[in-house]
């Protein structure tokens, strides 16, 4: 053989964030409290990225941080808030000060836009959005949605444009160095999103040996062909959750929410937990080993 047949796609979190140029378009993985790429969001803030466009179904603190730090100027999404607590405080302020714009779709529409991107077709049909302001009104897209008559049944169908972002950012449970990734629990829109990106970066709680993944191909939900780089990133979704790994830290999340209600509070949070620490590891140290251990998932519950 001409060389080793296992490709090593590992890079560091800093290297991964450094790949994203200002102005890039990103698929943003995770759904709600489950597996958001928090560590990647922090690193984008630390590196001072600007003018990103983010595509996602629904996200929470992770994208609120990106809006707060003015990393992102445009979102195409269906939902943002801090569930069970309140409106996303930074995004609210950024909408008011005009530094963030949001184009609204539904969760199904966004998921289908990623599926369309993954499938290599320019649009996908759906039966939502019809008759509402989601069709009638748009913020910045000239072609947001198109309603047509089905050539087979005559019924109205909404077509939404597929998304093929520059990068897809996924936080998975496990990945091997070749990029074969496994996700425990719900997948949200990550299966489609991982396949929609021109390049895909998979962060994961742990990197596992190729022997482990190759022994059971049925468990790999993102095969290596789609994956450009992998990053080992334990506790990478903290203070949110990763099924089978750890629970959310509601105390931290509530503190974030309270503090970020004001610009000053946000700046303090950002300085203390993001820009004021050197790396993801330093952030975890700041949270504290003992606190993290308490959040570990218990078997057989996974939380």
């Amino acid at each position, binding site marked *: 053989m001409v060389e080793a047949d296992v490709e090593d796609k590992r890079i560091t979190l800093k290297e991964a964030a450094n790949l994203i140029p200002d102005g890039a378009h990103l698929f943003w993985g995770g759904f709600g409290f489950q597996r958001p790429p928090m560590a990647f969001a922090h690193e984008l803030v630390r590196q001072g990225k600007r003018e990103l466009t983010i595509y996602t179904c629904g996200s929470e603190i992770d994208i609120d941080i990106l809006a707060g730090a003015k990393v992102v100027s445009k979102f195409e999404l269906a*939902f943002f808030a801090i569930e069970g607590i309140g409106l996303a405080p930074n*995004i609210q302020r950024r909408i008011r000060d005009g530094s963030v714009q949001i184009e609204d779709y539904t*969760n199904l529409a966004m998921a289908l836009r990623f599926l369309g991107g993954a499938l290599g077709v320019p649009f996908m049909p759906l039966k939502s959005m019809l008759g509402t302001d989601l069709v009638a009104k748009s913020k910045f897209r000239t072609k947001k949605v198109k309603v047509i008559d089905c050539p087979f049944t005559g019924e109205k169908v909404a077509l939404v444009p597929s998304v093929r972002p520059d990068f897809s950012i996924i936080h998975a449970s496990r990945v091997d160095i070749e990029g074969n990734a496994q996700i425990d629990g719900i997948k*949200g829109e990550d299966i489609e999103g991982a396949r929609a990106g021109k390049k895909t970066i998979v962060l994961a709680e742990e990197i596992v040996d190729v022997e482990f993944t190759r022994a059971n191909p049925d468990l790999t939900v993102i095969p290596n062909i789609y994956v450009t780089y992998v990053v080992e990133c334990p506790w990478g979704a903290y203070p949110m959750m990763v099924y089978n790994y750890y629970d959310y830290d509601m105390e931290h999340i509530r503190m974030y929410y309270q503090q970020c209600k004001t610009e000053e509070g946000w700046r303090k949070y950002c300085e203390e937990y993001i820009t004021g620490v050197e790396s993801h590891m330093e952030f975890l140290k700041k949270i504290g080993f003992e606190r993290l251990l308490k959040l570990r998932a218990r078997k057989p519950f996974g939380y």
Partner: protein
Amino acid sequence: MKKNLKEHAKPGEYSTLELMAVCGARAIKNGEVVFVGTGLPMVAAMLAKRLHAPKAKIVYEAGFIDSNAIDIALSIADSRLEYRASAAIGLIETLGMLLQGGRVDVGFVGAAQIDEYGNLNTTYIGDFENPRVRLPGSGGGNDIVSSAKRIVVIMKHEKRKTVKKLDYMTSPGYLDGPNARERAGLRGGGPSLVVTNLCQMKFDEETKRIRLATVHPGVTVETVLENTGFDLIIPEQVLETEPPTYEELEILRSVDPMGIYIPREQK
């Protein structure tokens, strides 16, 4: 002394939120596929499943199918919802194949504004170009209201929330009247029940306009009207909402023992 579980609780023995959760639970029939979010709808569905609808299958849009959670979840994607589920997949599965595929019997949604045709707003308060508040948006709300066979809306009853004209129509009720949903291409049955802190409302078969169904114990029709911004149809006879039974309350409180969604002090 042990109370008769089937008996209705007396005023003061339950909170308005508890009554609302019970109203939601009663809207679920055994064996139905139920699409809910977190909050009151989740509590309602869990109550139904533990009481009269053990074969109801609860679906959460993040990907949990036929969830049998034993702990209260704080997020729609909360790991707690995977406990003894049938499957854990994703949004294409839940919102696409189950819901849009026509297999969801009843969907629960909330709203910041509702109009007299049951159209809902969860996106903007104020002007679209320059809104006062930017709400969370549709999420899966529009998808649920577009495609589920029946819709239960649970929301607070205030004049500014029950409006003649929505600031933004996020989810389609009956749009502008009879057959409008069909003309728009929508397949789901549309809203069938609106549960508020004051009353239950349904929709007139013919005009598709909202009408009062029952008022909660201690609430008068006048109070409802005072707090309603649109023209509410008042039928000749308005019954009182059946109060929770002791059994319903007991199970409800076991579903949310910490009072996360239904704080105990409100009683």
